[in-house]
């Protein structure tokens, strides 16, 4: 249990979460296309450098900062732990997301159509802090008579998947570009628990000095892939696991040459888990007052056995291998950008030209559907093109983690090599003790005009 408590908090402080705020609607990189299939693409083809064509990594935890738990001061680790435990709430969560493009390439079918295909691996974990359970494990029930410990706070979802995808970006006219991407998911590992209910309460009463009450328990954990986690966990992501399908859709629309709207819906899909399933459920009510001695020598009772049988009769506990469906965490992205300043022409594919501005400002909104509630993120940004080949973007973001997250990104075109890099929470990197989240995103691609 000690290890479990430590593990929960250690994961919380080093976990990685993907935001991709900076990459959205930025430049003309293959990364942008993955966040909005309706992006305007102005090159003839692109070839991602395997494994490093798009790598994303982010740290995220809303409950506390690294320094709260690991500050170098005279307080004991227990003192720090207890303070953190006191300040977190059941709606706080840790979030781990990392995505690696294994293959990614695209090709212009005609002047208006761009097709892209690829395969990426994604690890995604979100776990809300079950504060009652952690306090119960840490302190026990003795200090908390009459307090109801809720089972419903146990909410988590973890996925390790491979995604094979094919997308199309279609330029309808000078103002409008639309796109869509079809995805086949292959889940290697899924663990999820949500919509649990029930409580455990210790009270005083007239029958015995104390009473334990388990009320309205209805809890379950659904899993697939946990039995072969060591040998098949990666190979199953290559279409060997539980399969599912989904879509991305996106749009770019120019209200005027200077005002651009981009929006996308990603991972509108599901995975059907039917292989290697292990589901666990517990349901029922139980009141424990202790053992009632009856002092009947003519009919001796096996009280302990009676207690066990009574518990089993009232609280069912079973394991099944029933198939289930897991929905992907859908993402909504939208950005409104106003461009201004010096205007330049750019040579594009097929000897066409595109006009662009050296400066832009705008707002973005990102939403991820999560088990307890959607995660919202609001970003204002400034883009500055230093040349036709160097584009930079600076962001300020408000989200669950913080209201002061500053990010920076750059896209460089070195000949045919496109390099993209972004770092969110640049000040957090400078001082890890005060950080709730950090995200990193980079990619290397060959683009051909």
């Amino acid at each position, binding site marked *: *249990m*000690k290890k479990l*408590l*430590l593990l929960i908090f*250690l994961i919380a402080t080093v976990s990685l979460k993907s935001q991709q705020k900076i990459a959205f609607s930025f430049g003309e990189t293959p990364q942008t296309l993955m966040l909005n299939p309706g992006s305007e693409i102005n090159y003839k083809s692109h070839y991602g450098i395997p494994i490093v064509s798009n790598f994303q990594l982010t740290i995220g935890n809303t409950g506390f900062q*690294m*320094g709260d738990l*690991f*500050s*170098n001061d005279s307080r004991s*680790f*227990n003192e720090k*732990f207890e303070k953190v435990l006191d300040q977190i709430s059941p709606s706080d969560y840790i979030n781990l997301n990392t995505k690696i493009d294994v293959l990614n390439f695209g090709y212009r079918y005609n002047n208006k159509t761009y097709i892209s295909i690829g395969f990426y691996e994604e690890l995604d974990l979100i776990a809300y802090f079950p504060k009652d359970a952690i306090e*119960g*494990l*840490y*302190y*026990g*029930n*003795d*200090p908390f*008579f009459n307090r109801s410990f809720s089972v419903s706070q146990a909410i988590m979802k973890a996925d390790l998947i491979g995604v094979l995808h094919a997308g199309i970006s279609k330029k309808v006219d000078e103002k409008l570009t639309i796109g869509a991407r079809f995805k086949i998911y292959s889940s290697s590992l899924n663990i999820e628990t949500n919509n649990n209910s029930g409580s455990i309460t*210790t009270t005083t009463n007239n*029958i*015995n*000095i*104390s*009473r*334990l009450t388990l009320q309205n328990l209805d809890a379950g954990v659904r899993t697939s892939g946990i039995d072969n986690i060591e040998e098949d966990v990666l190979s199953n992501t290559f279409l060997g696991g539980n399969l599912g399908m989904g879509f991305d859709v996106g749009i770019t629309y120019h209200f005027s040459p200077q005002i651009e709207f981009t929006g996308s819906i990603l991972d509108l899909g599901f995975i059907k888990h039917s292989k290697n399933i292990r589901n666990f459920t517990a349901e029922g009510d139980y009141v*424990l*007052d*202790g*053992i*009632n*001695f*009856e*002092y009947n*020598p003519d009919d001796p009772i*096996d*009280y*302990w*056995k009676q207690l066990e049988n009574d518990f089993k009769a009232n609280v069912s506990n079973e394991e099944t291998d029933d198939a289930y469906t897991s929905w992907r965490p859908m993402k909504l992205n939208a950005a409104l950008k106003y461009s201004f300043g010096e205007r330049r022409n750019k040579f594009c594919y097929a000897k066409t030209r595109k006009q662009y501005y050296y400066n832009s400002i705008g707002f973005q909104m990102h939403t991820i559907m999560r088990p307890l509630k959607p995660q919202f993120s609001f970003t204002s940004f400034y883009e500055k093109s*230093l*040349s036709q*080949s*160097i584009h*930079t973007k600076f962001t300020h973001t408000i989200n669950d983690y913080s209201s002061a997250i500053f990010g*920076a990104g*750059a896209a*460089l075109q*070195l000949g045919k090599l496109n390099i993209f*890099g972004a*770092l969110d929470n*640049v000040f957090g*990197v*400078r*001082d*890890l*003790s005060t950080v709730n989240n950090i995200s990193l995103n980079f990619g290397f691609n060959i683009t051909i005009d």
Partner: protein
Amino acid sequence: MNIYIKSVVTIFSLCFLMSCTDNLNFDEINLNVDPIITVPLIYFDLDQDDFFNSSSGTEIPTITDISDFRVFESSDIRNETIKTVFDFEIENRFDRSFEVNVVFFDGNDNITQIIPALNIVSEDLDYVATYSIEIATSPMFLSSRKVSVEVKLSPSSSQIDPNIYQTIKFRSTGTFYFSI
């Protein structure tokens, strides 16, 4: 162009190079988890009929009941328990005194722990007692697999009258201190 590239590369490099963990300490992660768990144990209500043999018309001076006590069957619990405290509350509405003996036994019926006798005087409605067992000094207690509660009617010149309703109520909890 080189200046631009250098500028951008410098910005990113600085972000990483300036990463500071000096004010963090990962060497002293030593979490002591010491939960205290309270659970209800044995309770009973006895009246005058429990101490009177209607066939022979005589008192029954001692009655005993016994139950399995499997709390310490788990090696994890055995290894992590450092102390157990038993609390007793007794309400005696008899006009007689009682002695209550709580004894623990291992799987072979060898005594592992005797809680000192609880002596309840007549008509004591608020008898309370607490008994603490430190595992360091009483490691045998962890071998306990059964518990018996003996209720002894103290000798008296007057005999139990089956027609006069009298009760004795016994309540108990166990509080287990763990160090994990």
